[in-house]
């Protein structure tokens, strides 16, 4: 009985450790359609996704596209962009919406949906997994740092 409990405990610890390592280890690519630049820094990207900008330098409206909470990338993206969990990200955007400080992002389930949406909407910027092979070169934004 005791050994079974110990085994379960160890498996849980290992899975958790694996998961955290998995989040940390994931990298993201930024896609943007007609956002006035193709190369930027991580800090700028984080600022953009925190709703600090509503217009691009080319006067296009900023449309943020994020993976939905159902997406496997959601937690990683939340950690990467907002330094919080998915719930924290949702609280962030609840707060932003209620304060009217930014246009709320569009949440899509898959990276492809995100790429497709960005490709079709001028001014849209999204984040996808860097491993995705379908990212068109014309919308890919290079992170310089």
């Amino acid at each position, binding site marked *: 009985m005791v050994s079974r409990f110990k085994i379960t405990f160890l498996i849980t610890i290992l899975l958790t450790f694996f998961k955290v390592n998995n989040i940390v280890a994931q990298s993201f690519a930024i896609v943007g359609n007609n956002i006035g630049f193709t190369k930027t820094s991580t800090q700028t990207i984080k600022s953009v996704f925190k709703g600090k900008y509503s217009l691009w330098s080319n006067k296009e409206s900023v449309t943020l596209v994020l993976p939905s909470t159902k997406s496997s990338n959601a937690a990683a993206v939340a950690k990467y962009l907002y330094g919080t969990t998915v719930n924290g990200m*949702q609280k962030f955007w*609840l707060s932003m919406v*209620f304060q009217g400080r930014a246009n709320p992002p569009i949440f899509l389930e898959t990276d492809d949906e995100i790429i497709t949406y960005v490709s079709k909407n001028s001014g849209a910027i999204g984040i996808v997994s860097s491993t995705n092979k379908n990212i068109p070169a014309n919308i890919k934004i290079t992170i310089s740092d």
Partner: protein
Amino acid sequence: MHIFKTVSFKIWVSFTLVMSLLMIFLFYYYPYQQQETFIEFKKNELHELANSLSQSIEGSLKNDDFQALEESVKHTTENKDFEFVAVILNENGNQQLLVVSPNIPEEQVFKRDLENKIYESHEFAARGFSGEVVIAFSKDRILNSIQSINQPIYLIMAGLFLASLIMFYFLARLISKPINNLIRVTNNLKEGNYSATIKKNNATDEIGQLSNSIFQLSDNLKASLLTNKALTEGLENEIIKRTLELQSSTEKLLDAQINARISNFDYYFDTKKFTVSHNFLQLLGIENIVSPTIEKILDFVHEEDRKTIVEFLNDTSNEILEINADIRILQKANDIWLTFSCIGRIILDPIKNTKFCYGTLQDITYRKKIENELRELSLVAKNTSNCVIITDQHKRITWVNESLLNLTGYSYNEIVGNTPKMFQFEKTDQNTLNFIKQKLDNNENVTTEILNRGKNGNEYWLELNIVPLFKDNGDLYGYMAVETDITNLKNSEEHIKKMNETLEIRVLENTRKNLELSRMMVEQEKLATIGEISAGIAHDLNTPLGAAKVGSENLKFVIDELKKLLPEISHSDQMLAFELSNQFKTSLASSGLQKMKDKSIVENYLKTKNTNSIKDLSQFSLTMVECGINSENIEAIEQILETENPELFIKVLLNLQLTENLIEGIVLSSEKASNVVKDVRSFINKGVSPERQVLDLQKNIQVVLNVFSHELRKKVQLSTHFQEGLTVVGFDIKLFQLWSNLIKNAIDALENQSEKLITIKTYDEQHGVAVEISNNGPKIPDEIVEKIFKKFFSTKREKSGTGLGLSIVKNVVDEHNAEISVVSTNDQTTFKVVFPNVANFTV
């Protein structure tokens, strides 16, 4: 103020009042309801928004659809009443504010207690989130919204209110006009004016019907008026007549009560309340007593009578229920007892207790007095020595007294029933009987004398007084005769008649003698005065006569001297001497000092001249000065020096001057003596005019003063103050008597005074000429002042005073229409005589 009484005003105001109340209600109720409804609506809206937001939150959390949430938030914040929206999360059992927009203090979100906000919250739960959304609206903005919604409604309501007022005003006018007409007509009808017209109309409304009813009523009243007018007039006349009769009867009753001096009283035993007529209090002179009590009134009742009344009132046996007694009550003001006839009765209640007493009090003082007088008179009539007969109106004797029975010899029964003719006989004077008849027929009193005869043939004279007797209504009911037996008087009448005739002659004779005596006494008074002042007159005569004698002797000596000297000077020097004697008067009488001074100057002057021929220059100079010639008369001196013998010449001149002086002195002395005689003659009425004439007052008084001059000089200090030019109209001789008596009295009055002053003053007064003769003698006692002008009144009887002096003064004053007055004080006595002005004098 009349407007407030008009019908239109009443209607209009009532409408206005109702409208005002309605409007006040609406102005209050409508906004309140509006506000409540609106707030309720806003709360619903808020609820819906909160619900919508919570659903949107749940949707955004479940589906990651923040676009819808954004729309919902936008929809919420765009609401114009929006105040704030907040999201509160429940985490680990704690509520944490996620967001609030706009930013407000956190506690406001949690407490939600501000009155100016309405709050609504709605819970949400999704994907592990739970919490609530809170929305707040501003109540002020909601109210402002309500206000802005209500404003036009208020305006409309105000307009409606004004319109309704105007409408009601005109409606009131419209309604009140016929009502006013109806009121006017009704009032006219009420006041009996049936001529007021009213239009009959066919209106079917209430006013029209009322108008028609009044129209009908007016017609009916007019008809009734005609039928009732005569009846009313008759009734009114009857009422007026009865009222007047009643008033007259009441007044007569009151007058009768007052005239009969009857008063009512009542007294209640239980309350002790006593009431009595006012005239009773007036009779006693105690009408000022406000509430007379039985005790107060009893204080005025005579002690004996008071006992009777008290016993009557306090009788508990109920045996004495009536009183009829004469009681005496004191009229304190005059301290007299009035007699009242008191008639009273006690009324018992059903259980035989005394309830009240009432009755009358009649003042019978006069009646009592008359009764007493009658009783006394009856005694007098019975017992008097005079005869008394009383008859009826037909002169039949009803009563006689004992004296008549004694005088006539008839018995009482023989006389009663007969007429007084039974005493008359053939010697009774028919004229006297006719006179009596005539007087009695005229109901007049008769007083006469008549000769009657008794039963035994004895004749007797009666002095008869017959008085007709009248009832109160003036009807004659008999006669009363009082007869005095004057038989003895009549017998001695002739003797008295003769005595009277002799007496008249005697009286005339005595009167003549008295008049003569009086005249003689006046003369005697005058002569006595002359006698008293004769020594003075002799003195006054002796003085000038003595002077004349001495002057004559001196004159003889001077003439002898001249006889020697004149022949020794030349004729021309004689002429010069006469001339200078006329020119200068001798200065022998001048003072010695002045004379010596003048002599020295003249002597010094002469020394400057050639005067060697003059042996004694000093004597020469002195004689020259004595001749009245001094250094100022250089020309005369030179003339004298140029004479042959100046020393002889100056002696002649001096003697000539002395001669002249002596002659003048003798003449003056003679005149003085003559004047004394003249004044005395004037005083004793010799050569004085008996006619009334205008006299110089001062001269008139001066004559008397001259006569009395010796007395005055010897005894008193006389001071005179005559106003010049005063005249009076009168008899000078009588005025002499006036002044001499007043002056003589003044001198006599000063007999015992150490300082004797008499002042005579004449002056003009407003209405005449006044003469005051005052002396500082003792005061004349007041009781004597009133008598001093009476004949034979004298205070100097022991000094042979006749008592005629001031009586003569008064007569003279009266004869001259003058007035005399005496003012006597301790310091001075003044007799003042005021004559009428000459212009005003009338005889």
